[in-house]
């Protein structure tokens, strides 16, 4: 079968959604309300074609003056004037009336000009009123004439059409949609008080594409960046890349914890460390990252809770030179503020980081912050977490997710509102245990896939300058050890054994 002749748009992220590009000669309708990025998309389509794919192009404008178009394009780093000098681009100012007449005639001056530079692409900014825009049979017919004129020259055409009804959630199909080969709908969507841009490929003849609304941004000095919808199905081949190594362990870096986990976590495993704020999840996480660096494994920490400087300071207090490890290139710490997270954008950043840095360990601090930002009960959060887990597994990363379980003394569920424990391989529960007048820290390995664990709750401690360690089960202290109680992970532990005096009158525990 002959290879398909696809025109790459060159717009970052868009060709992936279009399965590589758009079939050559297609007429693409880009529709959206004022200010949603139609002109930017059209100009970038032409600029990328001329500058990256040796496909000269023509831009036709009716209202925007070419000098302003060039000025605005320069803001994205696109030197249209230079492309004009090189005869790879022509920007033509005309009226709709003239264009309509031009495209109805075989000896069109406009198309002659396009042919002089060997144009393969054309962008016409604002075709709605060119064809009437009222959905009458006449306007459909006018649009048909227009597309025929463009196809006669085998131009791949991108036509911007204003559709004010596409603001918010309104969806009203335009009469031109049925004639165009591809339809891309741009929208500005409300999310609380924020506005996000979204892009949807409504149709594209002759090809498969990723359906649904994807996020996009218009970025200074860059142009348009499209972020694939995080919920979109992955290629099955990616899942096959997941780790299958039943022997190699990833040590945790917390003294005593490796013994509880038979040597550490599996490669590619998903571990959730759950516990209320202050139990030491982040400390344990830092130790996990530092241990990786000590072993020469690249380790990545993604924080939504604390900024990098603060994390470095915290590390110093438990004897970890995180700054030094970052300078050595073994550790990367990334912070993103959690407010108004655009989930597709955020996931894209993580994917890029993983691709570029190639970590063996990743710590995400914390899952609950994603939950509060995206809504823990919603589909978006669940799909995001699914995608994250799949990415880590495919990249053979042992990922640890800190998760704040709101229950202070004990736990009724492992992951609170986050009903996703089935996705998780290992669950480490950390909780306060109130004994006498002190909160003591308990840790239980509640779940470990493919790993028999004793599910014994052990006591832990965090020591200034040293970090966290798991204490031996039999404590050489004149207090009752945890093993003297039952119900440690519930709200009210009960003593199941004798008193201290009965156990050891001389003060020892056994």
């Amino acid at each position, binding site marked *: 079968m002959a290879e398909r002749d696809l025109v790459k748009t060159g717009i970052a992220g868009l060709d992936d959604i279009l399965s590589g590009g758009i079939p050559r000669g297609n007429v693409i309708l880009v529709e959206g309300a004022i200010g949603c990025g139609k002109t930017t998309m059209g100009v970038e389509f032409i600029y990328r074609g001329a500058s990256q794919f040796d496909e000269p192009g023509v831009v036709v404008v009716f209202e925007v003056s*070419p*000098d302003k178009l060039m000025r605005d394009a320069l803001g994205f780093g696109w030197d249209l004037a230079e492309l004009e000098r090189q005869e790879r681009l*022509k920007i033509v100012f005309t009226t*709709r009336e*003239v264009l309509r*007449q*031009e495209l109805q005639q075989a*000896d069109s*001056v*406009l198309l002659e000009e396009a042919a002089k530079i060997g144009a393969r692409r054309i962008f016409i900014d604002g075709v709605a009123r060119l064809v009437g825009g009222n959905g009458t049979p006449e306007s459909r017919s006018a649009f048909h004439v227009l597309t025929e004129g463009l196809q006669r020259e085998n131009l791949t055409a991108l036509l911007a059409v204003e559709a004010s009804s596409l603001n918010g959630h309104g969806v009203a199909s335009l009469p031109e949609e049925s004639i165009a080969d591809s339809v891309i709908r741009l929208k500005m969507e409300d999310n609380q008080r924020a506005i996000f841009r979204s892009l949807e490929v409504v149709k594209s003849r002759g090809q498969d594409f990723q359906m649904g609304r994807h996020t996009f941004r218009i970025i200074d000095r860059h142009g348009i960046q499209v972020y694939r919808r995080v919920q979109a199905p992955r290629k099955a081949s990616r899942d096959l890349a997941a780790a299958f190594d039943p022997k190699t362990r990833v040590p945790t870096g917390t003294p005593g914890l490796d013994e509880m986990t038979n040597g550490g976590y599996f490669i590619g495993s998903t571990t959730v460390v759950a516990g209320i704020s202050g139990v030491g999840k982040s400390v344990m996480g830092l130790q996990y990252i530092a241990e990786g660096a000590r072993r020469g494994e690249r380790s990545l920490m993604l924080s939504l809770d604390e900024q990098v400087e603060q994390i470095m300071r915290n590390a110093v207090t438990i004897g970890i030179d995180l700054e030094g490890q970052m300078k050595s290139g073994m550790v990367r710490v990334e912070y993103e503020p959690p407010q108004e997270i655009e989930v597709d954008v955020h996931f894209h950043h993580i994917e890029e980081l993983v691709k570029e840095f190639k970590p063996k360990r990743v710590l995400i601090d914390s899952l609950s912050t994603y939950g509060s930002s995206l809504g823990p009960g919603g589909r978006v959060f669940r799909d995001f977490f699914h995608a994250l887990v799949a990415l880590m597994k495919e990249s053979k990363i042992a990922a640890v997710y800190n998760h704040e379980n709101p229950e202070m003394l004990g736990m009724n569920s492992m992951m609170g509102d986050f009903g996703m424990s089935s996705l998780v391989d290992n669950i480490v529960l950390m909780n306060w245990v109130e004994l006498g007048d002190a909160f003591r820290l308990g840790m239980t390995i509640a779940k470990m896939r493919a790993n028999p664990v004793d599910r014994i709750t052990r006591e832990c401690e965090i020591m200034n300058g040293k970090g966290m360690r798991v204490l031996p089960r039999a404590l050489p202290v004149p207090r009752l050890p945890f093993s003297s109680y039952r119900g440690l992970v519930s709200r009210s532990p009960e003593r199941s054994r004798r008193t201290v005096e009965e156990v050891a009158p001389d003060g020892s525990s056994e």
Partner: protein
Amino acid sequence: MTDKPFSNRQQLEEIRRLLAGTPVIKAACDLDLLVFLHRHPRTLLTNEQLAAFVGYEMKQVAKAIDAFIDAGFLERTQNPNHAARMYLLVLNGPQGGGLKRFLQLASTRQGRREILELLGPGRPQTEPVDISKSKAKRRLHAIA
């Protein structure tokens, strides 16, 4: 409003020198057409539409276009069967440097005013058409 004096003598001298080197700029219509073409270097318009955009009578605009073409900084492509013509402003010719500077000065209100004042003696000043009454204005409405 009283007339403002020239912003400075140096600029005035420069404009005078530039006008001397650009004999085709004889009137306000020529100036405004040049500025329009600079902002729209490649246009595909009918003469009527061009006149409407610039805001002068078609006859004046046609005359200015011919002069620009003769001076070598405007190219015209036309097909006898079409009313629209493709115009291309070429500023890389021998007069290009001077024209660019001239356009730079004309891009400000003050600069344009000074140029128009200097276009008076020796160069018949053509007043812009009252566009609200002109055929050109009506035409612009019709095509918009």
